C-alpha cells in the first residue's frame, strides 16, 4: 500500500491504495466518485474515460502508482455550482444518451476534443470518439450533441459539418 495524492476535480485527495490498483477503482471505491464507470475492463469501451493532466485517458488502464501527483478530472467536476457544463447541456438538448452508462466517458472525451479542435468536422468527431462505445443510441445523437456543444463553446455560430454529413450506419464511431 502507498499514500496516493491526487488532485481530483480541483481538490487534493489522499488515499492509501495498492500501487497497481486501476485508477477507475480508486475513483469509484476509495474516492466514492461513482460517475466514472467500469464496463469492459479491457481498455476498449471507454466508459472509464477521465482526463489526466488535461488529456482524455482510460482510467482502467492506469495504475494508481503511475498517476501519483496528477490532476484528474471526472464527470463530477464538469458542472460548476448549479450550472451544467456546456457539453452536458448540449447532450441534454440533443438527447445524446439513453441508459447513460457510456455518457460520462463521452463527456470527458468531448471536452478534450473541443479543447483541441473547437470546430470539429464530423470525421474529426468520429475519430476523437472512437475510443468510446455506446450500445444504445446508434451514435447520431451523440455526434449532434458534440456539434451542439461546439457551437455553445465557440464564439462563431458557423457549422463546419453539413447536416448531410451525418454518419451512416457503417461509419459510426466504434464500428
Amino acid at each position, binding site marked *: 500500500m*502507498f499514500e496516493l495524492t491526487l488532485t481530483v476535480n480541483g481538490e487534493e485527495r489522499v488515499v492509501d491504495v*495498492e*500501487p*497497481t*490498483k*486501476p485508477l477507475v477503482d480508486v475513483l469509484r471505491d476509495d474516492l466514492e466518485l461513482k460517475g466514472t464507470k467500469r464496463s469492459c*475492463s*479491457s*481498455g476498449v469501451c*471507454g466508459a472509464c*474515460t477521465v482526463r489526466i493532466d488535461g*488529456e*482524455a*485517458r*482510460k482510467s*482502467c*488502464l*492506469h*495504475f494508481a*502508482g*503511475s498517476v*501519483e501527483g496528477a490532476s484528474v478530472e471526472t464527470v463530477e467536476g464538469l458542472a460548476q455550482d448549479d450550472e451544467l457544463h456546456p457539453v452536458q447541456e448540449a447532450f441534454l438538448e440533443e438527447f445524446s444518451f439513453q441508459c447513460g452508462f457510456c455518457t460520462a466517458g463521452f463527456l470527458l*472525451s468531448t471536452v*478534450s*476534443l473541443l479543447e483541441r479542435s473547437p470546430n470539429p468536422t464530423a470525421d474529426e468527431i468520429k*475519430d*476523437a*470518439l*472512437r*475510443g*468510446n462505445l455506446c450500445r444504445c443510441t446508434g451514435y447520431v445523437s451523440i455526434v449532434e450533441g458534440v456539434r451542439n456543444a461546439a457551437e455553445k463553446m465557440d464564439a462563431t455560430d458557423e457549422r463546419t459539418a453539413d447536416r448531410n454529413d451525418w454518419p451512416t450506419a457503417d461509419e459510426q464511431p466504434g*464500428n
Partner: protein
Amino acid sequence: MAGDGAFRRPTDVRSACQTLSKADDSVVVAGGQSLSLAVNDGAVDPEVFVDISRIDSLEGIAAEETRFRLGALTTYSDVETSAVVRRRAAVLADAIARIGDQQIRNAGTVGGAIALADPSADVPPVLVSLGAVFETRTTEQSRTYDAEEFFTESGKSVLDGDELVTEVRVPNVGADSGAGFEKFASRTNGRAIVNVAARVRVEDGQCANARVCIGGVRDRIVVSDEAESELLGTGLSDERLERAGAAASDGIQVRTDSPATRAHREGLVEVLTEDALQIARERARDGVSSREGGNSCSS
C-alpha cells in the same frame, strides 16, 4: 495476487536501470496501455514495477539534419501531432494515427511499443522499413541497435533485464524516397491481422532500393526479400507492384491461424503489400523533400 510487486518511480535513467538490475523479475511501466491489461489478467506478476514516466530525459522530439530523434516516452499522440514527423517520415504518423483511439494514443509510448515487441504491432514494421536505430541504456553502458536486428523470435527483443530503450533515431525519408503503411484489422484501428510497411528509393526513374516489412504473419516481423527483388531496377509500374505483392505472399510462411486463417493472411499480405507500395511510390514520385535537408536513407 498479481500486481503485488513493489512500485518504483525513478526520475533518471541510471536509477531506473539500477532498479531493473537488482530485481530478478522486474517490468517497466511506460504508457501502461498493454501492461495494465496483462497485470489485471494475472498474466504478468513481477516483483518490481519500474515506472519511468517521470524521467524527463526520455521525453521530446528532436530534429537534426538527416534524421529526427524520439525520446522513448514520446507518446503516440505526440508523434501524430508532430510537424517534424509529418514532414520527414509521414508514414510513422500515418501508422500511429490508426492505433486504437485517442485515449490510448495519449498514453501509449514509442519506447513501450518497441520494448513490447508485439509481432502484430504497427510501429515496429514501420521503424524497420525506415532503417531506424534504437538507443538503449544499461547500468554499464549505452548501446545502439538497428531496428531490424532488435526484434527476435517469439515476440521478444534483444533487451537485457536491466536494459531500457531510451531513444529512437529515424532517418528522414528523402525527396527521392517514399514510404507507406497499410493494415487490416477486424475493427477500424484495431489490432492488425496483417500489416505492411514499405519504403522505396527512386534514382533516374528506377527503384534503387526497397524494403517491405510485414507483421502479423508469424512471431516476428518478416522483411520480404522476394518483394524487394521484384522491385529493384524497375520503374515501379502497377504490374511490378502487383508482382511484388504476390511474391511477398508466396515467400512467407504464415504461422498464425487464429483469429484469421493462414489463407486469409496470405491474401492480405498480397493486397496490403501492393497498397503500401503504391503509397510509397507516389510519395517517392512526388519528390517532396524535407525542409531541413532530405538526404535519402542509405540502407
